């Protein structure tokens, strides 16, 4: 069991990072820390993808010295996926940060529990 983890240490690290991020996103009450957790979670996934795409002994998939043999290069698709994932993650973070600013301007706190209690004072109208 431990041996498998040691051999696949990159994937193990990725999943641990994912777990840390997930827990932070779920259980932290501070909004900024939640966002940091979300970014750690995404990073874990990207690390997983990047380590899966890498085959040791091979080069980046850019043709050098006219070598067109497939065996010489690594799989370029995971790198492409990571890139797309980073773009998605950045835009989501930007939107969340702007939401955070708006929430802070209104309630003057970043603690979600406090915000919830404050918002309870508003009546249930339309």
């Amino acid at each position, binding site marked *: 069991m431990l041996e498998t983890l040691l051999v696949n240490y990159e994937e193990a690290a990725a999943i641990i990072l*994912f777990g840390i*991020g*997930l827990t932070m*996103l*779920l259980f932290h009450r501070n*909004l900024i820390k*939640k966002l940091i957790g*979300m970014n750690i*979670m*995404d990073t874990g*996934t990207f690390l*997983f*993808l990047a380590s*899966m795409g890498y085959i040791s002994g091979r080069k980046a998939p850019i043709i050098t010295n006219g070598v067109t043999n497939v065996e010489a290069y690594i799989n370029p*698709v*995971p790198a492409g*996926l990571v890139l*797309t*994932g980073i773009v*998605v993650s950045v*835009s*989501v973070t930007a*939107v*969340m940060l702007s*939401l*955070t600013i*708006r*929430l802070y301007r*209104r*309630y003057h706190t970043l603690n*979600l529990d406090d*915000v*919830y209690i*404050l*918002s309870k004072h*508003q*009546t*249930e*109208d*339309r």
Partner: protein
Amino acid sequence: MNMIRNFPLFTIVLSLFSGVLCTMLKGKTAKYYTLIYECFLIVLVFFVLWYTYRTGDSFTYTMGEFPAPWGNEIRAGVLEATLALSFLIIIFCSVLGGWKFLVVDVDETKVNLYFTLINLLTAALMAMIWTNDIFTGYVFLEIMTLTSCGLMIVREIGRTTLAAVRYMILNLLGSGLFLLGVVLLYDITGHLLMVPMQENIATMAGTSAAMEPVTMSLGILTIGLSIKSGLFPFHFWMPDTYGWSTPTSASILSSIVSKAYIFLLFKIYYRCIGIEVFERLPIRKILFILGILGMIFGSISAIRKSSVNRMVAYSSAAQIGYIYMGIGIGGMMGYTAAMFHILVHAVTKSLLFLTTPRLAEVSGDSLLFKNLQGSAHRAKDAGIVFLLCSLSMVGIPIFAGFSSKLMFALSAAQADNMKILFFTMSALAISSVLNALYFLRTVIRIYTEGRGGADISAHKLYEEEKGIRGVAYDMEDDEEEEETTLSKMEFRIPAAILIGMNLFLGLFSWYTVDLIQKGLEMFP
């Protein structure tokens, strides 16, 4: 003929383009443009439906003509086209029916941006329906999450911001899990396109050791999407999200966005995993149980609410439970019932969210039951529409709700498993009684004469919340009196269309069932 094969791609690309275009238009122009554009899309999708129904087979559009394992694909069949067509009609009706409240809730300078969001949401919806590539599904799923967050926060009050933050946190959790599931599946199968993925999984399906990782990654993926669509233990974000948004947003979010996630999940089961392999996995049973729990607990939560919008929102949680129960029952009939219920719920719930603010409007802008008393007499058309929708939700024959409940019962009977039959029947019975309890209670309340405990304080608080825009609202009241007929038509036309669809699904359900079954045959 060959031109029609391009139409699914057009619906995605043109929607993205329209989104950009709307940023440059004025508010009202953007609205008319969006309405006309949605009609245009409806025509395009109708052609796709007609073409696939006539040829009796789905077609695949390869981007840039790169062949299967490398390129990105779009695939259109009867099922996809049916859903896309209904969803587009619902978006059209929601925009038209909620316009009156939109101009109040959204800052005047930002109205065109609202339509940018609507168009981007349409693009994401179309992409999620047509795509044949799981990673494209992920990207557009995130676009849909962002746009639906935007649709909520356009109404700038504290509660929507808080609701949006909670909604986003749960959705990001869901997206993260979905991404991890996709990555794991890609790692196991080596493909992102759904059909080659299914072929690889089919070869692995013989050995249980190879199926364990597949089951686990599929489980992660399922948890992700069920958080996003609001399956039972994850349904608590719904009332805030739907309750505080502007009516158009609430109607689109409840009827379309959550269904799009379910459809993507269903597509992954059917096309990535393969339905025979999926039926052997334990995930189906878990979905069945959670679906039933959702049906009951969603309804119980709905009974305890004092505001009509929150009640309707919790009833959404119950209806999502129905759909997952259908997937859990399995078999051709179970999947047909689940897909049919997606349509039924989308048609009914969108109209309910367009109706409740009209009842509130004549009750001092309050959605509380005590203030709503007699509102159906003050707003007659809204009262009738609410009554018809309630009857459909409860499951009275001739309405769509009855047909779908009947189909769930039939599919459980065909499942050849006494436990499934027993639990489905009991859940349907309990849920129908609970539905009747809270919907008919509301109907009786709004049809009871007199103004109940209507108080001005709720109205006042509403005005304070709006601040300066509250004054603008009063001024618009005078203008509105001149435009009463127009404003009434803005509600009556979408209401008539959606009620018509509801009755069509109820009275002539076999046409739709035939479409769905044909679609499912060509779906894998």
